[in-house]
């Protein structure tokens, strides 16, 4: 970050700290109600200023060749409630790309959905549009104000050897793409980063329909989307990918009391893009190769403690190779040390299964472990800063990878 940017950030922090009441009034001023109180519209937003210090090549879904990366983001939210039956949500962003990168500025509508609640309770709701997946329990805290960390858990950003735009010719291709060492060494380049897919790409704002509801202590959600959980953001728009090969996902949740929340999720859908069709075996289509996923999630909260965990077993059906399985999980805890200071720790692992290579079986990815440590401070109800350090260890590398990050978030 340049000195003038840093001074600007400090000045902003000072103003926000001194005038917290001003932001209360701004928040009120951005709430519109009609005279009959049928319609209520709230405009709000987040300004994120984040900077990273990275080892190269950068890990996960960070796209830069530099050691330092400054990644600002403006997110504008519109929540509109028409009676208790209709709810509209829009999230628009201006940033350097959906994931942190050194590209130029771009503006996107990341989420827009309409939810219809036919009854006077929340037993059933219908939702249509472009929205975050119902799978797992990370989505409700993925925005920077709620997320104790700057980044996502490993399984939402660690790149595997699966490509969506081309099918491998053989196991050697898959292992090379997965950066698995073989007798010729291994690929540790950055160039193929744009081709590889994670197990789940971020909150997966794909387009589709969902049915959700809560009955007593049980929650349910089912969705049909135009793209698989691993698909890249470019394919989440309905204009980019239609519903010829839909992905079906769902989650069932149980809350025995306010402290605990348990969930099981499942998802299945083709992960290859239309560009991959030419590289498929004869008479096969992209719809024949799916990403199948099973998940379990737990959340616990009590006084100043919060704890979350997700466990996923995923299977990619890979042309010419068969099933490529991954097991990934993370355990995350947050504790408020003082009213304004919190600390968080997260342990992540992604473990790869074997694929058949002739007569033997070989592991098709590098087992990866990562520890994330974060400390955050809320100056006011509208200004927060977080510092994070992550250490990643991937099997063939003797030395681990370090990432440090700083994020300042202004909420309005």
């Amino acid at each position, binding site marked *: 970050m340049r000195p003038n940017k840093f001074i600007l950030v400090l000045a902003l922090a000072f103003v926000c700290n001194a005038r*917290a009441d001003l932001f209360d009034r701004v928040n009120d001023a951005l709430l519109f109600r009609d005279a009959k109180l049928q319609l209520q519209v709230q405009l709000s937003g987040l300004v994120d200023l984040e900077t990273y210090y990275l080892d190269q090549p950068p890990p996960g879904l960070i796209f830069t060749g530099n050691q330092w990366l400054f990644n600002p983001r403006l997110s504008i939210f519109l*929540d509109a409630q028409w009676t208790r039956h209709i709810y509209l949500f829009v999230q628009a962003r201006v940033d350097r790309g959906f994931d942190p990168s050194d590209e130029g500025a771009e503006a996107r509508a990341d989420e827009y959905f309409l939810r219809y*609640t036919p009854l006077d309770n*929340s037993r059933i709701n219908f939702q249509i549009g472009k929205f975050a997946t119902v799978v797992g329990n990370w989505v*409700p805290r993925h925005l920077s104000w709620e997320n104790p960390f700057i980044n996502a858990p490993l399984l939402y950003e660690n790149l595997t050897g699966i490509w969506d735009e081309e099918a491998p010719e053989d196991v050697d291709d898959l292992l090379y793409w997965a950066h698995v060492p073989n007798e010729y060494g291994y690929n540790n380049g950055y160039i193929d980063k744009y081709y590889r897919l994670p197990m789940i790409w971020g909150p997966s704002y794909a387009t589709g329909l969902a049915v959700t509801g809560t009955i007593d202590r049980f929650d349910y959600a089912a969705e049909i989307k135009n793209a698989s959980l691993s698909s890249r953001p470019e394919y989440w728009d309905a204009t980019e990918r239609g519903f010829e090969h839909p992905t079906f996902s769902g989650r069932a949740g149980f809350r025995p009391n*306010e402290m605990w929340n348990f969930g099981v999720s499942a998802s299945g859908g083709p992960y290859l893009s239309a560009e991959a069709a030419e590289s498929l075996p004869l008479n096969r289509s992209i719809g024949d190769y799916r990403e199948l996923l099973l998940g379990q999630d737990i959340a616990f909260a*009590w*006084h100043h403690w919060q704890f979350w965990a997700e466990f996923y077993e995923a299977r990619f059906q890979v042309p010419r190779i068969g099933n490529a399985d991954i097991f990934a999980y993370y355990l995350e805890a947050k504790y408020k040390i003082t*009213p304004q200071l919190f600390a968080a720790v997260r342990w992540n692992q992604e473990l790869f299964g074997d694929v058949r290579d002739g007569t033997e079986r070989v592991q098709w990815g590098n087992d990866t472990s990562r520890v994330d440590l974060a400390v955050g401070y809320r100056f006011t*109800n509208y200004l927060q800063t977080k510092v994070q350090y992550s250490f990643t260890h991937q099997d063939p590398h003797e030395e681990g990878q370090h990432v440090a990050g700083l994020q300042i978030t202004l909420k309005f």
Partner: protein
Amino acid sequence: MKARVLLCFASLAAISFVRADATIEGLVTLPPPQMGRTLSARYQTTVEAPLTPSNPPSAVVYLEGNFTGAEATAKAPAQMSQKNMLFSPDLVAVRVGGVVEFPNLDDTYHNVFSYSKTKRFDLGRFRKGEKPSTIVFDKPGVVTVHCEIHDRMRGIILVLETPYFTKTDTAGRYRLEHLPAGHYDLKAWINEADVRSVPVDLKDGGTVHVDLPRK
């Protein structure tokens, strides 16, 4: 003999302070009540958007002056509960050193906190039925209280140096009794941008009628 005279004077002084028998009553013009609808949660299956009335409007009326001799009366803790996703009441007044309880009456978690300079605290996640946390407010000022989970919940705790304060009813009527005679400022706190003030002269045994209309 000297000691008796001193004791006599001291007693008279104490009696004159205890004999605080003036009364002020009147009407504070309050802002109109507001209705609000809780917005649906963006990423949850629970969709609750009932039309709920906000707390009825009210104001805190207090007498400002030098009351250092006035004893602090031990009072039961004030309460600011969480009910129907609102703080109820959303305006509470306490004297410096006063205690406020925050019971959760909803079937969901609340996380009450304040980052106000007057008092910073965070109760963490509390559920219905748990023994409510109490907070001692030891500095005068305005404390804005929020819920971390429910963004639009907002409450005010007014921490006053004076022992002479009351809350209006929902029509704005108030009555302050057992006040000491003297010259003071009578104030009505509606919100941080609307604090009304009127000078008053109080005499023992007298009742003064003071209205505090909108500015």
